[in-house]
């Protein structure tokens, strides 16, 4: 089985995003960037499918291809995926930010070329917070989708996926090829070891341009402004539970 893992370069999850004074967006100058945490989980799962870790049979995945759509520096994100254990990478260069629909169209073109049996990806990028690309990619391909996965089992050309939904857990089975988007509790990604980081430097990354795929990536959305949310001020410290209850009663919330 061949697995394609789309990975996105985003602001590091430890960094608090700051809005630019001119309201044109979020200031990303000199900000630490990392692989979207959900995508790390997706890469880890793909590698486990290859290694036969956990409940997976060995070689469930034979080849893992990491793909990123973005600026030149997204190469580092792909290298990171290669260090965790992906086999090769594809960078589809774009100097402008693409909307989820455009990213899904580019990824569809990559899927048409690479013909993976499974696309494993993050449920949500922690910058745009759209939670959309996986579902759209599945729709464009006419593939089934299994979103918010906390457990994945591959057998007999099918994927059995447990999904984290409001109210609990749902398990569904989808015929492959399919798109699976991963949630936080699917696994804990490993730290890439130094030897694997060295090995990753030798792995191949093909560079393409969005234009190579001839897809329509024209924006449909115009960002009018990006503003700061209303600030919450720190309130007061109370001495004990009795004072707390008195305050809450005076506010009428209990």
């Amino acid at each position, binding site marked *: 089985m061949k697995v394609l893992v789309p990975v996105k370069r985003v602001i590091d*999850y430890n960094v*608090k*995003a*700051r*809005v630019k004074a001119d309201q044109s967006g979020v200031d990303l100058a000199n900000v630490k960037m990392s692989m979207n945490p959900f995508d790390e989980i997706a890469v880890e799962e793909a590698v486990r499918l290859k290694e036969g870790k956990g409940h997976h049979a060995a070689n469930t995945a034979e080849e893992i291809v990491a793909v990123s759509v973005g600026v030149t520096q997204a190469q580092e994100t792909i290298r990171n995926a290669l260090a965790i254990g992906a086999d090769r990478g594809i960078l589809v260069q774009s100097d402008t930010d693409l909307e*989820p*629909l455009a990213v*899904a169209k580019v990824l569809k073109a990559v899927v048409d070329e690479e013909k993976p049996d499974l696309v494993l990806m993050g449920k*949500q990028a*922690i*910058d*745009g*917070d*759209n939670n*959309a690309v*996986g*579902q*759209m*990619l*599945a*729709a464009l391909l006419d*593939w089934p*989708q299994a*979103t*918010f996965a906390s457990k994945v089992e591959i057998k007999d050309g099918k994927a*059995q996926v447990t999904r*984290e*939904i*409001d*109210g*609990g*857990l*749902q*398990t*569904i089975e*989808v*015929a492959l090829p*399919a798109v699976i988007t991963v949630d*936080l509790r699917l696994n804990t990604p490993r730290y890439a070891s130094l030897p694997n980081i060295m090995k990753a430097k030798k792995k191949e990354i093909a560079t393409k341009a969005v234009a190579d795929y001839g897809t329509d990536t024209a*924006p*449909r*959305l*115009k*960002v*009018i402004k*990006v*503003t*700061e*949310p209303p600030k*919450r001020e*720190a309130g007061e*410290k*109370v001495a*004990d*539970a009795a004072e*707390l*209850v008195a305050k*809450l009663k005076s506010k009428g*919330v*209990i």
Partner: protein
Amino acid sequence: MAVLVIADHDGATVRDTTHKTVTAAAKIGGDIDILVVGEGAKGAADAAAKIKGVRKVLLAESAGLGKVLAEAVEATVLPLADGYDAILAPATTDGKNFAPRIAAKLDVAPISDIIEVVSPDTFVRPIYAGNALETVQSSDAKKVITVRPTGFDSAEEGGSAPVESVTGGDAPKTTFVSEEMVKSDRPELGAAKIVVSGGRALGSSEEFHAVMDPLADKLGAAVGASRAAVDAGYAPNDYQVGQTGKVVAPELYIAIGISGAIQHLAGMKDSKIIVAINKDPDAPIFQVADYGLVADYKIAVPELMAALG
């Protein structure tokens, strides 16, 4: 103009998230229809018909539709899409699952998780874990939108719209296997007036339930948790509050043994009153708390129970 709202429901009745989505639809303007997709969902359709301002309710029923598989919802909605300028769903896990799929089929850029309707084509949505608010204008003729329920008031009751049947679609490549739902008599996390949330400090599942459940019951509150508490298995996944879990905005949010990471704050900082109980006076949660109690929860929570009487 006409707007289609895809209902969030349990078969017997519609959830309040649907009422809130109707309010967002009304702000966009035009006729509002509600689509109820399900299996044995007549009760929900009748309940939807009572929401004020609704023109008609469309009921798509068939075996399997009750599990809200994205492909089946897509196949149900696509034939109806021509009649609408906007398709809205609450930003629940179901809405988030099917809405982008429908959008892609219609070649539309979906707009996720809106908290405000500025005009029929312009919306505000949080990005970067709520650290920024983006105002976006859509140039698509048709809009596909998910609505963050905490951003809108509930539409009132008092309507009497007709209910019509429409054909349901299916999901040929997907099979439902099983479901494990958390049973609880407490209010739903997203709709509760009071939420008490526990963090990593609770240390075990037994301790989490021994501390949080009686407090929740005393206050008539829903129980939430931080990601750390859910990851460690102290609480079910459905309890997670935050950027990548549930977003809540109750009248009162009490965080117990939660440090206040950006990702957690993203899910609760619009609560009316925030209380934090944490033994570390420098915990970031105190920066957003209206009332902070620096204390060991093991002492503070029993005292709180006693003070509540």
